[in-house]
């Protein structure tokens, strides 16, 4: 189970951030924010490779003794970051991909909602 999930908008402002333990929220905000650096770096690298069809899944962004962060970028530059506990060995790459796919679908459905303006913080439950 991921400890924190975040959606970060095109302009790098957080759209949605939820973590399991609310007392750690500040910490995850910082981590999430720092992850944008890695995401941007990866985007530039993948742009350089020149392929049109971009792989949305960015893989492992960052890993420390406590957490691992995985990144995903939609075609509209919305970043999805999942932070999992480093001790968690159940989640492999494939599972992470599956979570990202589900999150991406959820986000797509949200954008389809006529009452949602893209770029606004997500408040829906």
């Amino acid at each position, binding site marked *: 189970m991921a400890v924190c999930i975040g959606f970060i*908008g095109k*302009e*790098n*402002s*957080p759209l949605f951030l939820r973590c399991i333990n609310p007392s750690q*929220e*500040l910490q995850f*905000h*910082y981590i999430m*924010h*720092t*992850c*944008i*650096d890695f995401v*941007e*770096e990866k985007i*530039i690298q993948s742009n*350089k490779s020149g392929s049109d069809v971009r792989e949305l899944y960015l893989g492992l962004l960052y890993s420390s003794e406590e957490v691992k962060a995985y990144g995903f970028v939609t075609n509209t530059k919305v970043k999805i970051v999942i932070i999992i506990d480093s001790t968690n060995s159940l989640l492999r790459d494939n599972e992470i991909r599956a979570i990202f796919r589900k999150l991406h679908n959820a986000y797509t459905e949200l954008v389809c909602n006529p009452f949602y303006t893209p770029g606004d*913080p997500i408040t829906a439950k």
Partner: protein
Amino acid sequence: MMMPINTVGGPSASEVIQQAFCPAIAVLSSPDVDVVCSKNRLTFVELLQPFSRLSVEGQIRDVNQALHSVTHFRLSVRDISWRPASTILARRLLSEAVTNADSIEINPHTPWYDSWRETLWSCLEMTDHDFARHYLATLLVVSSSHPNPMEQFQQLNDQLTQLMSSNGTVDGPRWFNMLSLRYHVLIHDACDGETSKAEELLQTMRNAYGSHGCHLLVINSKPKKGSMVEPGLPAPDPWLRFLPRKASKSDASIEGETVVDGADAGEMELPGKVVEGTNSQSLGSLPKMPIMDALQEAMQEININSILAPSPSTSALSSLTRDESTNMKNNLSQRSAVEIKDDPLNAGLGMTTSGLSVDEADGTGLILAPSIVESELHGGCLTTEDLDRIQGLVNDFCLKSLLPHMERQMRLLNESASARKSTHRSLLSATKRWFGSSRPGGLQTTQTVAVSYHPESVQLQLRRLGDLAFLLGHYELAYHSYHSAKKDFEADQAWLHYAGAMEMAALSVFLQNGHNRTIPFHYFDKALTTMPYWATRCAVLASECLKATNQYSDAALQLIRLTSEDADLRSAVLLEQAALCFLRSAVKPNSSSGDAAKPNMVPLIRKYAFHMILAGHRFGKSGQKRHASRAYQLALQVYKGHGWSLAEDHIHYTVGRQCLNRQQIEAACHALGALLKPDSLQTAAQQTAYLNEFIHVHQLLNKHRENEIKTSTSLPVLPLPVIDSNQIRVLVDTKDPTENISPPVSEASHVTFNDDEVHHAKWANMEEKLVQSAFGTTHAMFRPTNLLFSNTTNNTAHPQTYCDDLISLELPLTNPLRIPVLLCDIRLVWNFSGADGNLSNLLMTNNNPLVTTYILPRIVLNPSSSHKVVLNVKPKAEGMLTIEGVAFDLRPVNVEPSAAVVGLVSSVSGRVMFSLQGPRLNATQQERHGKVYASDKRLSIQVGPRMPKLQVLFNSLPEFLFSGEIRPVVVELSNICPSVPVANIIIASNDPLHLAFDLPRIESKNVRNDQIALYRWDPTQKSIKMWLKGTENVGLTSLDLMFFSSNPAIKARYRLLRHCSKIFVSSSLSLGAWIQRVPSGENRTETLAVQLQVRNLRDADDTSLSGIAVSQVALLSNRWHLRSDQATIPDGVLHPQESLIGVLLAIRGTEKREYNESVVLKLPSHGRAVDFQLDPYRSFVKEFQKTTPDTTLVVCWTATQASEDGFGTLLIEGQHYFGWNSQDIASSSLPETSLKSHQQQLVSYSMEYSTKVFHDFDQQKLCVIPVTLYLHNCSQQQVNVHYSANFNTG
């Protein structure tokens, strides 16, 4: 030699490294030397420090006899008794070094880092594995004033020999080797003793110690005259850069540490102490005298304060400055005197002046530490020639003694090393290699056996060689030496030596030529992991090298690796540098250093910010609050404005707390205020804490300000509540709140904020008509008066109002927090500019003669909600009243009751200012291109002269009427502004059909707006009658009245009073009539039969109206009149849903009269007949006949209504009208079928045929039946009739 150029300023990497390693020279002096030097308030070491750099280029021959030039040669001169600082002291020194760096504002060069680094170098101990820092030579100094200098020299020599013999023991000074160079200096005071004697002595010395080992230094050429300073003093004091260090050192020495000044080659500078123009060098000094050391910290504190927040105390201090400066004037050199005299004049000099100031609160009484006094203190007896001589001594010493000595040493070492290299070492290392066990990387922990070498062992000789070469700048030789030494050390598993050699080897490569060879950075890594104790230096150096080659992220990694739990300051400084490295990681590589840097790197600004936060945290823990706030604020720049509100809040809160701790309350207020912003994600509890903290800080601030300046300052601008200025609505000429009006009487409603129809065209029409009637003509571009200004109205002109008129503002106050907030004493803040100049209530109490401010006692703003609050002001003089904002006391709501009892209810007074911007203009080309906004003047209200003000009272104005009901209302008018006469009162109503006044009506010539009726009021009348008639249509109707009044003294100004009320009309009767011509009889007059149907439309179960009785039926016409003898109308009361049908006969009158009124029926119970010549009936009928001019049938009715209290009854009367034109005489109407019947009656027909026909179909198949169709045209027009037959057989 090409050095990688550091693109960001500050010392370059190679300079940093060279600073870290420069030849160390010990000084051993006799006590009398210090006596001589103390005339200048300097020790001998200090005297030399500014000149320790070799000013000319030296040359040596290296081991291969090749000429090698030595540049940037610099000495590190130390007293022989110098010891590295102890751990505790070192920590303190490092901390001071960081604190002392004053230019703390955003500075990419981070001078505090440089100074921290310098201090770090000087705090390192000498060890046996690193010879670069061992003394290469010793200066023996004796004064010529000594009774027997030669003997003294001898003594010193002996002392030195003794010291050197204990070389290598734990604490003592260490020499490079036993053959240390000795250089004898005879110091001679030119004013005190004969020069010839000194010369003789020198000669003797030369004989004794060789000509290259002796020098005569003549100083103090200038006699010391009290404290006077000769103008010939070289202007910038060269010692200044070194002496702050001395101050802190001697401060430390109070603690019993034998620390004497003179660390590394005098690079201890206080960067940017005060960096301002020419003043900087003389003003930036610090006290040198030990007694002033205690002041130093306080001084810096003041310094900081004044830099961060321009201190108001500057002016207070400047007077003290003046006193001091007068005392000093005679001591000053001319140039300095000018400067210091300037200071008190420029009292607002901010940094400069306060740079001179000492905390007065300390009570030390000492106010000044001006630099000029200092410059008098140092080198006061030295002339320029003396300084040249000192430099000459250094040059002489370096060129003639030190360099040849080093050259010699180098050659010797090289020979001995190469001699053994071939045989012994290779064999040894080979065996080691074969039989040795493992790699060094994994060993450093297990291998704790310290390998100790003999000082003269071959490995150490190699290392020495390398160090010597390194010091001389001969990096290639150095590298080779280090490299081979490294191999030896590795083989011997002497890890400390090994690591040191590796570190130096890597540095040598780097300095050799950074971009031609790959720098073995892995050496650094290994060195780092191998020798934890020296790791800091190693990491710092490594990161400098990496930075110089643009490998910023690696440099950052090196630095981060060194951060640890125990050393907060080190971690903080290193984290900050790491953060800067992340920021610079996008810097494009220089063309001169083309390796390694990756192109296309983005700056890792978020990592930068994160590490800044970490650094700020560590700074905070290590007590460097200033740096902590700075780091947090730098990081905030990245986080701000992107929605990372939790992180932002954290930073703001931390900064706020730190500012509070440092008594920078204003900054704390600012930071904490930022926490109370909208869209905060914090929980309610957290927000409560923030709010309380904020209020607490504000209270402190107020107290602080009160202490500082006695006058009450303006209220602070608070972040709560949020006011959307654009939504503010301004209502001028507001109705005064009236008392003494009890329910049956009501007042004219006038304009309110809740009025939906304020800007309805009907009001404009009425106003136009009124103005036209009052002033004769109207302007072609008539603009109706606007009283309510909002964001939808045109606000390019100032709202107009008059003295003594109330002005109301409706403010939408929004509370964005999740906790309720209490606002007390809410009042408007205004600025009034009238004939007597400007006036504002920001500083004043509430009531003043010109403007009355009304105060709203309290309002609770619920969480995340918006309240509309109406606030009033009343100007009492002519002028311009500008509403600027709103002031209030802010409180948290859920104060615990106990706190309220104790009186700890915290509140903060503050204000929120309005800012208005008109709509964006888009009319012209220019406006479309740029962003041009219209001006919005709705808050700047023009107050005109006093005008009469009408008060209109209605007595029992109904809210419910029955359809057709006529209700009288008494209207009272009075001028509530009695000092001004009123004239020209005109009333306008736009519905004369249902409203009548007991007033003469003004007939309008204008055909337009004919719906509007005007009535002129006779001012002598106190009250008049007004009649209301229920409309025919059931439902809500509005009663609109406009009262016009003007001041006879003032032309073209008028005041309008509106009344608008809603009346609900419910159903009563319906009246229908069917009119037909009937045979006229013998006298051949046209006769009409009027069949009339009156129906009670009330619901059957309705009890409010007990029953309607028709009291009178009349026909008002100038053609027809009723034949009262032939009317049949049943008597009785109509109950709900009952109908009454009656028939009347009317004959055409012969003569034309204005009204022919025929009363037909009068019910006996109600006595009075309605006289249609009287108002209001005449008026109503007249208005009705405007639409149907010919004939009007009037049905008058009465009913009793249960009164509202349910006991009594109320007699009401009403009238219904039915009108027709004589032309459509055949028409009749019952309302529901009127159209249909009308059409049917156009043509009437009849058929004539026999109903029984006998026919024998056997004779004839066809039967013909004649049918005669009579068509009658009822109308007077020609009618085309189509006939179609439709048979229905069967």
